[in-house]
């Protein structure tokens, strides 16, 4: 099961899955990781992503990876959220928002939520384009090089990697093409 999950992610990188969708999935994973869970905002973001054609596997992987390092970013996110929430120019907006039904359930007035949301939204486009370029480079240049390199071959001989390779082949149906 676990191997199959990893295999799916490798298959994605080596398949015809749209690089835009893969990159969007990764950027969305970053956004979901930065916004603390357990509030309506996170649920809404998750549902929005769910209804778009982003790559969920990548979303979950990137989200899980960034969640691990999120405690290190707690201070900057808190400071960013505090700066945004206490900005005099934005006070009328947040006051109006606070008076609306449902909006308080998003916990937008929490510094980590607001900091995570602002950082996640601000980083989304750069992350999207960055990941898009990286996926393109991987597919066009690095995939072949890695596969034909000595290190790549050695790694392929490892039993675990062998299992993954077989699974990749089964999932992507790419064996014949490559």
């Amino acid at each position: 099961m676990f191997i199959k999950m990893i295999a799916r992610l490798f298959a994605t990188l080596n398949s015809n899955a749209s690089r835009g969708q893969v990159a969007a999935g990764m950027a969305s994973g970053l956004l979901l990781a930065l916004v603390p869970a357990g509030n309506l905002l996170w649920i809404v973001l998750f549902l929005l992503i769910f209804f778009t054609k982003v790559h969920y596997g990548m979303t979950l992987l990137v989200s899980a990876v960034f969640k691990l390092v999120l405690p290190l970013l707690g201070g900057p996110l808190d400071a960013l959220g505090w700066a945004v929430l206490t900005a005099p120019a934005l006070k009328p907006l947040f006051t109006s928002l606070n008076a609306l039904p449902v909006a308080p359930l998003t916990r937008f007035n929490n510094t980590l939520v607001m900091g995570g949301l602002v950082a996640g939204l601000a980083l989304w486009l750069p992350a999207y384009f960055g990941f898009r370029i990286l996926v393109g480079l991987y597919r066009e240049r690095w995939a072949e090089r890695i596969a034909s390199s000595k290190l790549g071959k050695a790694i392929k001989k490892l039993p675990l990697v062998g299992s993954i390779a077989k699974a990749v082949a089964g999932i992507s149906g790419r064996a014949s093409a490559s």
Partner: protein
Amino acid sequence: MKTAKKEPKAPKTAKVPKPHAMYRKPIPEKKFQRRYLRHIELPKDKAMLDAAFEVRDGKRLLKAGLPADQLTRLNILARFIKSNRGFVKTGPLLAVGILVAGVVVFGLFLMNPLLERAAEAGLEAVFGARAEIVGLRFQPFRMRLAYSSLAVADSDKPMSNLFETGQAELRLNPSAMLRGRVYIEEASVATIALGTPRAMSGALPDAPEPPPQAEQTAPDTPPLVDLSRFDAKALIQQEKDKLLCTAAYEEAGTAYNDAVQRWEARADSSKKAVADAGTSVKAALAIDLGAIKTLDQATAAIATVKTAISQAKTVGTEAKAVSDGIGKDAATLKDLSGAAASSVKTDLAYLKGFVTPGSGAAMAALEPSIKAMLSDQGETWLYYGRRALDILGRLRVKAGSGSGNKDKDDDRAVPSPKGRNVYFPGADYPAFRLGRLASEFPAGGAAWSIDIRELSTEPDLVPAPSTLDLSMERDSGGRIVVKAQADGKATAALAFSLTASANDLAVDLGDALAKAGLAGLTGTLGAEARAQGRSADIWELGADLGLADARVPSPEGTLAQAIADALERSESVDAGIRAAQSAGGESEFSLTTSIDTIVGQAVSALAASYAKQATADLEQALGDYVETELDGKLGSKEDFDALLAAAKGDDKAMDSYKKALDDKLKQLEAKVAALGAGALQGIGLPGVSP
């Protein structure tokens, strides 16, 4: 029959798959480029797809006779072409359907148990003790919440419930709910009970130990003596522990014992030394001066006398020290035995108080019981009052740490793992608000009505202070009405006030005054009480009570009978209570009643006829008690006196010895002088010529 030779089977050719539907129709070139080729990412696949189609009349047609593996690959690519088109998925509609079904299942099977647990957790946080809700049902579309029963344990008394309610229905405010607040507009509760016992402890696992409960001790009530059947000995036995003479004799007896033990050995040793010295002294004194003829005999006698003098001096010093020490202790012991003797007089005066009771004695007998009874009742209500204020305070603290306080930003300098909350005005809903809780129910032979309004975590966001209207009407008549108000607004500093009144309330004091012989005292009570305070710890209370139609069915004892008669004759027994607790935690309690005046004269007149004989009996009985039980404790006094006399005798004896020896020595020295003069007679001195 010849059978034909089987021909070898032709090798199986791979089955040619049908091309995907999207490839079967001619595709315009522009569309092929934009909607097919553009969505293939891998260059090899892109080239294969391009090569698999031929151009005819500006349209792309799938080439005929493509090999099976190429068609298979093309069909796989068709899936990618489809999934790579567009941004929005229609497929998740199925997931939404599943989600809706999940929500329905959650609502049917999981929502209520989860809400139940969440509500219990919230109550446990507020009350600091276990909370148990049974049968919680939430109807989201009607915004109604109901439960079968609720019990919240008392954090200070974990084996009791602070309160327990029966079936209840709550109407929630949807607008507040959508803002993440809980606003119970109205709650109706079938029954409410306070202080009910619990089968299991209600303490939370990590809760601090509850403060130790002060053990309720029965009031120390002096008995009212039945003068018609007065028994002096029985009274002394009953009061024995309180008599001063018992302890005084004990103390004096112990002191004598200690003194005897301390001096006995040393006095014996001194006595023996005195006896030995006496022998030596007598020997020295027995020297016959007439028998001494020579200087040598005289010198030997002087030496004997000097030795005896030296021994007498040493022994005499010890005998004096013993005599002085015992003499000093004797003075102290004399004071103690004097005090013991005078304590008997004090005790006699104390005991006479029982048989010559004035009005004060009657009050002294009744006051502790009355005070204990009123304190028990009052403290119970004060306890609940204090807990209510405590809980209001806790609600405010919880709100302060949550998201309800609109004026206060959470500006902790160190970021918390949960972040900081910035507060914005606008949502005028407290985190929790109970608009009204009403309950009417029968309990304990009375009809109860409770109406609580405006309990909230942020009183500043609520238009009115918290109020409690409570009334209790007994089936047998009598009514209690309590009106209380607590203002938790920041400007009001959690001030509270309370008024209570009771009318025509039948009271039965049961055994509360049994020690005074007034068991079963009944009457009709009327009362007015007022209380107010700045907090749960700073308050003052006043109450005026009137007990009419007082009756004691079977008073025990002459004085109790007199009191019962006096109470029956009086129109009303009035009492005034004043209690207060100041900022330093010091509390005051005072009770004034008209009982003293009412029964005083009747009791005094009755007592006078019995007092003379009873006093004489007491004097006799106390004398007997001292003689039989206490005098024996001073048994060591005689031993000590003997020690003192012996020590003094030894000291005197040694003095007389020393005097006699000194005289003897002088006589011997005179003898030596005489002998010396006789020896020189007839011896001429040599002449001396100039």
